[in-house]
């Protein structure tokens, strides 16, 4: 063991105290109560508060048993666990409003939750918080076939919505890997992307209107069925991706499009990552817009094959799954162009199919990638770095470097057509050294992504998991504006506080930066 490890370095603590002190002075000058961020979420969920919550929601919808607390102490994100003080299943907008008013009065935190598949800790409870679960709000309220819109409650499962509208020849394109489980509310709150982002965009491209309970308890309705609407600020773009920090969705109006007439799915494998990355870059620069370009590296291919047994190319360095869709001959034409480009880039085993069932098998396999990687090790920490598409080959290489330099296994896959990669560190969360290596690898990946003009998260959100990177990498004016918006909407900081960024520069963010 090296000597530095044994010694305690007090200089960090001293520096810490100094920074704290300086901030304190700075804040006092500007008349900000610096301690508010810490004080306000005090030990506030007392028995009395729980009684009041029971009165609002009914006892059957207010869970406080130890077992339930354990079962709502996580979402899909590794490493983050915190038991809440209560779990609520409100049934009406008024109940939600009452809960939030009580939270302001008694100063406790409220954490909205959909299906809990989030990958950035968005619905992981905070200390002394109550979780507000929306999964029972699962009605499709109206399918308007004349205007091509659908109005839903936020707890509707994305896949269920897709199946329902497809029966009427309509199409809701956003297709996160978790679509069988995740909710529309969670999708809007995370601005979820998915497999079809390249051609069809992400959740925000389909949000037309919403009803939301604001943190103060007010009920806000915004947007509507108008295809164009420029009256006032665009609140839709403000709330989409707000990660449950600006309000609780209670109704969501979504745009639909007609189902594509036909599609062709293409698979191919590569002997090296460079050829694979170049193929993607070449397809994009040839002005073809496939509905999907999904990338899987060798580790991912093998884990997915272990789960699905569908004959994926186990020896390939990487593979691509692509899809083109549309009308008539155009589809064949584009498919052929893509296959030409793949060939030029030394792709092997190029196959194409227009059989829906086969295509579905491939997509289902791809959707399982993240969880399938966990076959290798107990913990899979996945990231979401995204770069301009032309930089994809470079970024794929950087991920390899990160793994080699930090001596961790990283499985890499993602929505290659969007420049959105999901490098996944495979470790054991109980092994502290491994966790540290993984965090160092991600640090490297994020820095490289930002150097390439990219972002730390393309679709999973910031939540708790990427908060410190976000605060570090966001220019002060943008961060300050976001903080101002948050405190204007949620003056007492009761709704999912401390997610995305800390609202007041608390020690939390200092410690990590």
């Amino acid at each position: 063991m090296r000597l530095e490890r044994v010694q305690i370095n007090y200089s960090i603590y001293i520096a810490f105290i100094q920074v704290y002190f300086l901030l304190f002075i700075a804040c006092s000058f500007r008349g900000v109560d610096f301690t508010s961020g810490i004080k306000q979420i005090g030990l506030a969920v007392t028995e009395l508060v729980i009684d009041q919550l029971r009165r609002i929601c009914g006892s059957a919808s207010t869970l406080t048993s130890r077992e339930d607390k354990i079962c709502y102490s996580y979402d899909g994100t590794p490493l983050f666990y915190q038991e809440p003080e209560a779990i609520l299943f409100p049934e009406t907008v008024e109940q939600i409003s009452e809960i939030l008013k009580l939270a302001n009065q008694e100063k406790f935190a409220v954490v909205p939750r959909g299906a809990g598949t989030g990958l950035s800790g968005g619905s992981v409870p905070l200390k002394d918080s109550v979780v507000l679960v929306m999964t029972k709000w699962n009605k499709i309220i109206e399918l308007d076939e004349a205007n091509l819109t659908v109005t839903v409650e936020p707890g509707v499962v994305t896949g269920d919505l897709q199946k329902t509208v497809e029966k009427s020849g309509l199409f809701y394109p956003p297709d996160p890997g978790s679509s069988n489980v995740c909710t529309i509310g969670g999708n809007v709150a995370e601005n979820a992307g998915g497999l079809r982002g390249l051609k069809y965009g992400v959740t925000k491209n389909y949000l037309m209107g919403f009803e939301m309970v604001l943190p103060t308890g007010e009920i806000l309705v915004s947007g509507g069925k108008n295809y164009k609407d420029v009256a006032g600020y665009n609140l839709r773009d403000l709330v989409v991706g707000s990660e449950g920090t600006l309000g609780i969705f209670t109704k969501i109006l979504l745009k639909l499009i007609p189902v594509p007439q036909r599609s062709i799915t293409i698979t191919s494998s590569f002997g090296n990552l460079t050829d694979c990355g170049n193929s993607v870059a070449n397809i994009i620069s040839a002005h073809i817009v496939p509905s999907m370009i999904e990338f899987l590296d060798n580790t991912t291919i093998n884990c997915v094959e272990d789960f699905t047994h569908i004959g994926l190319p186990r020896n390939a360095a990487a593979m691509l799954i692509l899809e083109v869709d549309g009308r008539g001959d155009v589809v064949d034409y584009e498919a052929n162009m893509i296959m030409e480009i793949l060939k030029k880039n030394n792709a092997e085993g190029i196959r194409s199919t227009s059989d829906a069932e086969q295509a579905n098998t491939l997509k289902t396999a791809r959707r399982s990638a993240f969880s399938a990687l966990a076959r290798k090790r107990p913990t899979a920490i996945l990231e979401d770095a995204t770069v301009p598409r032309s930089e994809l080959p470079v970024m794929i290489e950087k991920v390899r470097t990160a793994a080699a330099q930090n001596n961790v296994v990283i499985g890499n896959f993602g929505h290659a057509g969007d420049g959105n990669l999901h490098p996944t560190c495979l470790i054991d969360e109980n092994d502290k050294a491994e966790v540290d290596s993984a965090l160092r690898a991600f640090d490297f990946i994020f820095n490289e992504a930002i150097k390439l003009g990219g972002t730390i998260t393309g679709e999973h959100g910031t939540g708790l998991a990427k908060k410190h990177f976000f605060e570090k990498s966001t220019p002060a004016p943008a961060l300050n504006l976001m903080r101002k918006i948050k405190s204007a909407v949620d003056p007492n900081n009761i709704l999912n506080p401390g997610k995305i960024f800390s609202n007041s520069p608390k020690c939390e963010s200092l410690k990590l930066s």
Partner: protein
Amino acid sequence: MKNPELGIIRAALPDDEILTKCIHCGMCLATCPTYDLTKLERSSPRGRIQLIKAVADGRLEITPTFIEEMSFCLDCQACETACPAGVKYGRMVESSRVLIEDTKENYAIPDIVKKIGLNYILTNNLALRTVAFLMLLIQRSGLQFLMMKSGFLKIFNKNFNEYLKLLPKMKFKTTRGLLKGVSLKPERSRYKAAFLSGCIMDVAFSDVNLDTIQFLLKNDCEVFIPEKQVCCGSLHAHNGEMKTAFALMKKNLDAFLAEDYDYLVSNSAGCGAFMKEYGHLLSDDPVYSIAAGKFSEKVKDFSEFVHLTDFQTKLRPPDETVTYHDACHLVHSQKVSQEPRQMLAKIPGIMMENLNESTWCCGSAGIYNVTRYEDSMHFLDKKMQNLKNTKADVVLTANPGCMLQIEYGIKKYGLKMRIEHPATFLNRLIKE
């Protein structure tokens, strides 16, 4: 140590390798019938795994809610099929049940009945036959009818009449009574198939057993039925009675090892699934480990076997439309779902209807429909709606539990439909 029972817990629960595999991604939630019903995380596979882990870590005692959730789970293993990470949920819930049994201090009357049934009746051929005979007497003499009509059974439990309807109708003949410890040889023989008559199958589904054997013989397979065989032990293992299960497993290994054979053909998905596990369960046994491994490798479900070896007889086209319900123990435990469909598709002129959500549990789940009658009816309800929509004449399924439950459902919902085992269906189509 927060939990004084941690020693027992550690011994009963699977090792860390299995316990820490779940990454709580939630991908299994969509397939879990109990989560579908309650929308509560604690009745989801992900939630239950967290509870089991909490007990294993000593963060949670074995509380009534814990016990309730472990018993509410159907052990249908749909979550295992759905889990990309390969979490062995079945092993976790089953060992939690062992743990619950091991740490129980008092037994309620239903527990005692269950224990007697599992440990003394199913394990003993004579006792099983005696009980079957008594049941036959009650069922066929009109006594059951009187008991149900008089309503006096409701003193014990308001659902008692329903339990009686769910019980299998006893048959006058049983397989091993009929074909005692024999090898049956057809004229030409392609394969030698060993056959497990089973416990419930033997006394209550002897007709299915006979159909299976006849079909195998007609397909040029020699059939070997060891005399000393016993119940496979699956019901015991699923209900936390591991000691008895191990004793039964070893008896069966001795019985089947008496002769060499190509495959062991099972016509009960539950038994097949469990016999495929012998190898794993006995992998540490100094005496039986190798034999158990070999034994398990040879186990094949009836449909798997027939699909593999193909029909040798001419079949006439069926005049009824058919649909297929996946028994959990076949599709989820054994991962056999294509073979039965491919086998049926080979029947000339067959009319198959697709059953929506065919892989969802019907609520039979071993003895779940008796131990948790009301919950079980929710799951049956979903299944019957889907079956009704197929408008099929016959529903085929390869597990005795599912057959009883769906038969009960057909009567309850007044459907014009018949439940049948694939072996019976095939056997009826043989052209003489």
